[in-house]
């Protein structure tokens, strides 16, 4: 049995009394993660990869150990395919610059989706503008699910790149990524999957999935801010020029020219977020101990509970698919009450609720709403927090009656 009370004990922040329902935004971090970083700071704080002494060797080992943990976590073939970035956004931009600028040509088609996060839209808009490519967006149906018929039509135009998210952060929609990747690859496209909401909640097997790139953020999966991952297929990464230049990503620097380091370091210029990467390793360990299956089960239980509780409230509209096809995210609206006003009232009860466009403005435009309220769940979420949310909603309805 998944013991959420025991899990919560690992998160000192809950002693403040908050009900934290904004994990799709950023997760909380357990003591196991923060103490791993603290251990670095207090015992072997040093720079890596230029190690001439023991503490720097330990820092290097632990930094590289995260890479192996992440490799195993997503089942990549090699640690050469695991590149440290600040997060999903930098990971996607890395691909847009280092792969995109060289490989996307004028007139090429880029296929995105209307429910994607800005971080998986804007880098491609910038690329399309620079290289003269065009972008098409896969629409959603009335349940908030991607229109697969339209996706397949677009594939017939042989897009150069197809990029979409594993799970929508705004609606919680779980996209049929296995099928979509297979079809996109068969159509000859390079495929990037935005795993920001997928990696923490569903996990992934990049080899089974068969995508070319996979991006995710440590801070959404119990790790510190400042550390995230780009997975890239080795063959592609080998062909790519570096993104940023600087220390550590080179073999030799000469006035006449420079040779670059091997993978994965070719893409890690300058001093990396060493402590944060070490913390991410601890987060992967922590998730491994809980077990991704258990996490999923727990989230499903909470999501179903919340879905039902919210659906019971009069004047409340839930956006997106039924609970069986959604991750632990519920976006909703209240008749006559703006999401911001609801969030402000919830905040009085220490209920942390997100209100806004969730960095998915094209989706908001598509849904015809300026903003939604959103509750999202993770390993530590308990039913009591959902109950408190329901209380805040009723309170708001009382005030705005």
């Amino acid at each position, binding site marked *: 049995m998944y013991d959420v009370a025991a899990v919560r004990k690992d998160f000192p922040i809950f002693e403040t009394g908050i009900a934290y329902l904004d994990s799709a935004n950023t997760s909380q971090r357990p003591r196991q993660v923060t103490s791993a970083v603290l251990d670095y700071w207090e015992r072997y704080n040093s720079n890596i990869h230029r190690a001439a002494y023991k503490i720097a060797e330990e820092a290097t080992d632990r930094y590289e150990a995260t890479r192996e943990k992440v490799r195993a976590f997503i089942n990549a073939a090699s640690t050469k395919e695991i590149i440290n970035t600040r997060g999903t956004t930098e990971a996607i931009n890395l691909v847009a610059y280092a792969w995109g600028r060289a490989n996307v040509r004028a007139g090429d088609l880029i296929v995105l989706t209307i429910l994607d996060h800005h971080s998986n839209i804007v880098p491609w808009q910038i690329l399309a503008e620079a290289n003269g490519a065009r972008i098409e967006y896969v629409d959603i149906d009335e349940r908030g699910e991607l229109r697969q018929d339209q996706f397949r039509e677009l594939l017939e135009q042989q897009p150069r790149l197809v990029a979409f998210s594993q799970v929508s952060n705004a609606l919680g929609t779980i996209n049929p990524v296995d099928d979509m990747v297979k079809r996109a690859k068969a159509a000859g496209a390079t495929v990037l999957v935005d795993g920001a909401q997928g990696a923490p909640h569903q996990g992934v097997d990049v080899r089974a999935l068969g995508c070319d790139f996979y991006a995710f953020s440590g801070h959404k999966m119990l790790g510190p801010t400042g550390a995230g991952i780009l997975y890239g297929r080795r063959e592609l990464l080998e062909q790519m020029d570096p993104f940023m230049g600087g220390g550590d990503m080179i073999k030799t620097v000469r006035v006449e020219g420079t040779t670059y380091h091997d993978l994965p370091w070719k893409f890690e210029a300058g001093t990396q977020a060493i402590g944060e990467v070490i913390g991410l390793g601890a987060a992967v360990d922590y998730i491994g101990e809980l077990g991704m299956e258990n996490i999923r089960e727990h989230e499903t239980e909470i999501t179903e509970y919340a879905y039902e509780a919210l659906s019971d409230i009069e004047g409340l509209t839930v956006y997106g698919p039924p609970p069986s096809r959604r991750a632990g995210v519920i976006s909703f609206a209240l008749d006559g009450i*703006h*999401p*911001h*006003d609801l969030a*402000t*009232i919830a905040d*009085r*009860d220490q209920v942390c609720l997100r*209100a*806004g*466009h969730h960095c998915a*403005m094209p989706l*908001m435009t598509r849904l015809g*709403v*300026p*903003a939604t309220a959103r509750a999202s769940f993770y390993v530590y979420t308990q039913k009591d927090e959902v109950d408190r949310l329901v*209380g*805040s909603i*009723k*309170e708001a309805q*009382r*005030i*705005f009656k």
Partner: protein
Amino acid sequence: MSSKPLSADDQFYREYILDHYKNPRNYGRLERPDITHEEDNPLCGDVVGMDFSIKDGVIDDIRFHGRGCAISQASASLLTERLKGMPLDDAKKINKDDVLGELGIEISPARIKCALLSLKVLKVGAYGLAGDDEE
């Protein structure tokens, strides 16, 4: 929850703010405005627009339209009440503190932009002032 005594946050949604939100004053459009301007707060989707009719340097008539949270809409409604009949020169002097004072509640930093959106419409629309000085 409903048995809770009147708290600071009930204050936040004081009766008259809710009243202005539900029954906005001067809501709608003017047929032939001398000035019309709209601003939005893209981060939360609030929109406020104002139509001004100016006669002899005085705001002769005014209407606002928009959508958004209670704070942004009540603030616009309150501001139009105040502006109606005011000489433009006086309207120019209205500042943040005036607008926040009129709301008469504590506004958290995250909601300041909602509260000041209508002021931005006034400033940018009526005077062409740069609108980012409240950041």
